[in-house]
């Protein structure tokens, strides 16, 4: 992690992603976008445009049918709880 005071951070498992775009559609911060690079299965996987506004809400990960997104959040910030 860099030292910038970011709230959230995500990682895309590009070999698992099928490029459906559901995550792109639900991110309120426009963090995600489908790229023009293919994974080994031939899918244009989801990419992080710019992470700096990521709130770590995990809505993208919740909506991903393939569990291709990992999310971290600063522990003192409340967001979408997984309860």
């Amino acid at each position, binding site marked *: *992690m860099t030292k910038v005071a970011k709230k*959230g*951070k995500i990682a895309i498992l590009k*070999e*698992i992603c*099928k*490029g*459906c*775009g*559901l995550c792109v*559609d*639900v991110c309120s911060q426009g963090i995600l976008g489908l790229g023009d690079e293919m994974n080994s299965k031939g*899918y244009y996987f989801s990419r992080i445009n710019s992470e700096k506004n990521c709130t*770590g809400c*995990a*809505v993208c*990960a*919740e*909506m991903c*049918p*393939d*569990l291709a*997104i*990992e*999310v*971290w*959040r*600063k*522990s003192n910030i409340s*967001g*979408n709880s*997984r309860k």
Partner: protein
Amino acid sequence: MKKVFERPKSLKDTPSHFCPGCHSGLIHRLVAEAIDYFKIQERTIGVASVGCSVFLYNYLDVDVIEAPHGRAPAVCTGIKRVRKQNIVFTIQGDGDLAAIGTSEIIHTANRGENITVIFINNAVYGMTGGQMAPTTLLGQRTTTSPYGRDVQQEGYPVRMVELLSGLEGSAFIARAAVNKPANLMKAKKLIRRAFEMQINNMGFSMVEVLSACPTNWGLKPLEANRRVEEEMIPCFPLGVFKEKIQGSEDSRG
């Protein structure tokens, strides 16, 4: 930073075979989350139906038995009756549950068998190439209704939730969708509630989950997702249709 999203323990770390944008992956995950939530992985037995959900044995890390097409509720009945200590569930598609398996689902619900059914309604036969299902929408084009489902020819979409709610034996019957975060969160609660009903010996529980099948709808994933909102939900309203209260006269728990 703390990791805030993790794969449920009872969902195997295996890439799924589901098509891009198919909601089945989401629904399988919600089932795994419910199993984790109640810490019942060790005593849960899944019954795989026939259709795209058949591979539940590849994804859910529980013991699984495979049933013939449509017969999963009957197989669940057998298992639960001899192994009451186990939690028994199935995931069925609409061709499986509402066509070839109509008889099994109706009588299992009517007998109030203490099992849980997760019903994936994607309005087509997915695995076999998108034929019309009982739940196909009016006007919906499929490979066997190329001009759109016509009420004169094929009748109306069957609403299984409404049908099964009317049976005295059913204990918890609900319908959910996973097309957007708010609906997904509700679906998560309802699926959890369905398992809770079984744990509390309340009898038959079923959650129907509306699901996109981009491949057989001939739509891109986001278009298919939108169709759930714009066309499916108006035909198949969401909510809890029946819920027996524990300790009440008509409950078994």
